[in-house]
């Protein structure tokens, strides 16, 4: 299950990059380095979750594969990615977690028109931060991600990080019927108003029940990305002690997670250092036990029989070099608050659902099940979304997010990384920056960022059903 990082179009991409550089140089003066050219075609296809001999499942793909090809880009090097839409419906690509110009953010209606069937859109940006990111559609997201559209996006450090191997596990959750097809019923009101469309098959790099071959003594950098629609995960590496190096692509102080458990909500990424201190030939399960009573084995670390790579364990892993994120000025920050409301057992606080203890099923008849500050923006993004608040460019914003619902919400902010200050009044350690912050029921999170990037930016829950049913807002940076 070793992920193949090679990008199949690299040779063609290289030639195009040379040509692109020549053209750009004649038109612009500021281009310092060659533009990296990539092509992505979105189209229906099929995949086999249980190896080459398993039954095929019809899916939607980037360049014919599930997950899509790993895009490995260089920090600070401009890239131009042409996305061609071979679906029968509009799509966009959101480069999740990348700080980029607003027009490249891939939100239909808000930052670009959807790419219509048969048409293409060229995304151009220069990734400022090294780390683990991912890409996915932001149009009809529930269906498009649920049918397989997701791919890893790795921004490489200028200087390689000292590990023996750099691995990636892109985790996807599928809701399949008994005969192995992707189940219909997208947008069910029960899913929308409870925990979202959690599935019944989890894959690692597109494969179910595979194993990760490892060698005794080696140090892995393992990049974990949860590309599920709704499934929260809490991973335990039996017999091993993962060290967290980065969250959502942004390096933090190297630390062991609480209880050795890596909580990874939809859209989150965690990079860990994993020292393989097991015996040659041994096997160790990786367990996801997020949901009570529903723990399962995600995969297995399978040691080959070779003797250990080194005689003595390595020293503790070093922190990764930090990206140059602007530091918020907390003393002079503008304070904003968003309150998450609604859902089942939500006390009926949602406007239009009634103020009683019980309620009809929120989200019934295609209505909103959730709201932010009393307002439900539903769907994937559309023109004319009025900003919840406006920030002057360059201002520091101290943002409080308050979850008044009975459900978990990974809140994703587009265009920025947030310095996470506190959770329920306790300081958050390890100097963490995140673009997707998980709020447990009733949690209050305080975070801060510098509004240095102009545009209308989305802030929404990344449980796709929750976003579609109203857990979404927009803010403006002038």
């Amino acid at each position, binding site marked *: 299950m070793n992920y193949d990082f090679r990008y199949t179009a690299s040779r063609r991409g290289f030639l195009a990059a040379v040509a692109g550089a020549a053209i750009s140089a004649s038109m612009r003066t500021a281009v310092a380095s060659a533009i990296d050219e990539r092509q992505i075609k979105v189209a229906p296809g099929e995949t086999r979750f249980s190896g080459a001999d398993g039954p095929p499942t019809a899916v939607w793909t980037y360049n014919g594969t599930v997950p899509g090809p790993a895009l490995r880009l260089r920090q600070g090097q401009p890239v131009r990615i042409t996305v061609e839409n071979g679906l029968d419906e509009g799509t966009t690509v959101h480069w999740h977690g990348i700080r980029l110009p607003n027009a490249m953010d891939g939100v239909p209606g808000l930052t670009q028109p959807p790419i219509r069937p048969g048409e293409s859109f060229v995304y151009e940006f220069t990734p400022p931060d090294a780390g683990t990111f991912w890409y996915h559609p932001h149009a009809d997201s529930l269906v498009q991600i649920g049918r397989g559209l997701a791919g890893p996006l790795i921004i490489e450090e200028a200087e390689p990080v000292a590990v023996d191997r750099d691995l990636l596990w892109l985790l996807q959750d599928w*809701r399949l019927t008994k005969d192995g097809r992707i*189940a219909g*019923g997208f947008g*069910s*009101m*029960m*899913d929308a108003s*409870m*925990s979202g*469309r*959690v*599935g*019944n098959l989890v894959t690692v790099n597109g494969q179910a029940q595979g194993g990760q071959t490892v060698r005794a003594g080696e140090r892995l950098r393992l990049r974990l990305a949860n590309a599920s629609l709704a*499934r929260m995960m809490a991973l335990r590496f039996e017999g091993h002690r993962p060290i967290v190096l980065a969250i959502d692509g942004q390096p933090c102080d190297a630390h062991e997670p609480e209880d050795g458990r890596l909580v990874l909500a939809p859209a989150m990424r965690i990079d860990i250092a994993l020292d393989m201190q097991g015996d040659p030939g041994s096997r160790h399960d990786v367990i996801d036990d997020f*949901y*009570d*009573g*529903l723990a399962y084995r995600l995969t297995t670390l399978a040691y080959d029989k070779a003797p250990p790579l080194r005689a003595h364990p390595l020293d503790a892993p070093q922190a990764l070099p930090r990206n140059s994120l602007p530091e918020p000025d907390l003393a002079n920050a503008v304070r904003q608050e968003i309150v998450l409301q609604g859902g*089942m*057992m939500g006390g009926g606080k949602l406007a239009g659902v009634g103020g*009683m*203890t*019980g*309620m*009809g*099923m929120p989200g*019934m*008849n295609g209505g909103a099940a959730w709201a932010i500050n009393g307002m439900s923006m539903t769907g994937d993004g559309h023109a004319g979304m009025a900003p919840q608040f406006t920030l002057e460019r360059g201002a520091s914003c101290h943002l409080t997010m308050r979850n008044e619902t*009975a*459900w*978990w919400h990974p809140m994703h902010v587009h265009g920025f990384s947030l310095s996470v200050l506190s959770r329920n009044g306790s300081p958050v350690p390890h100097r963490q920056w995140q673009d997707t912050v998980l709020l447990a029921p009733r949690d209050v999170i305080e975070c801060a960022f510098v509004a240095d990037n102009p545009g209308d930016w989305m802030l929404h829950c990344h449980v796709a059903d929750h976003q579609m049913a109203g857990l979404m807002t927009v803010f403006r940076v002038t």
Partner: protein
Amino acid sequence: MKLTYALTALGLAIATPLPALAATIEAVMYKNPQCSCCEAYAAYLEQNGFKVDIKPVNNLSQISSDAGVPADLEGCHTIMVDGYVVDGLVPVDIVKKLLTERPAITGITLAGMPAGAPGMGGEKTETWTVYAFTKDGKAPTVYAKE
């Protein structure tokens, strides 16, 4: 033979307020692992002569849909009991009526989470309509009102 006996016992249970006379009715509840109302409803059933095996599942809407519950009438959990589907917070006397009358339907459902329903807090503020559904594509019909 056994079935007839059980049904007679059930009939007695409905006729008298003493649930101890009824045989224990086995039920399996599929529920969202993070929803607490369903557990309160299961406890309510257990106080009324049922034995409820709670199974947390992440794909409840799929189970409910496979069980034939119409999408616009989903309750917050799905119970399989004695050959029937009981979806949502249906009052126990209506469940027992179903198991006694044994109509030719797939099951019954009380949509949503109405205030005052068993397992929910609050005061009952409206008439609840419990619908009967089948798997033959016919429109749901009213089974009971309370």
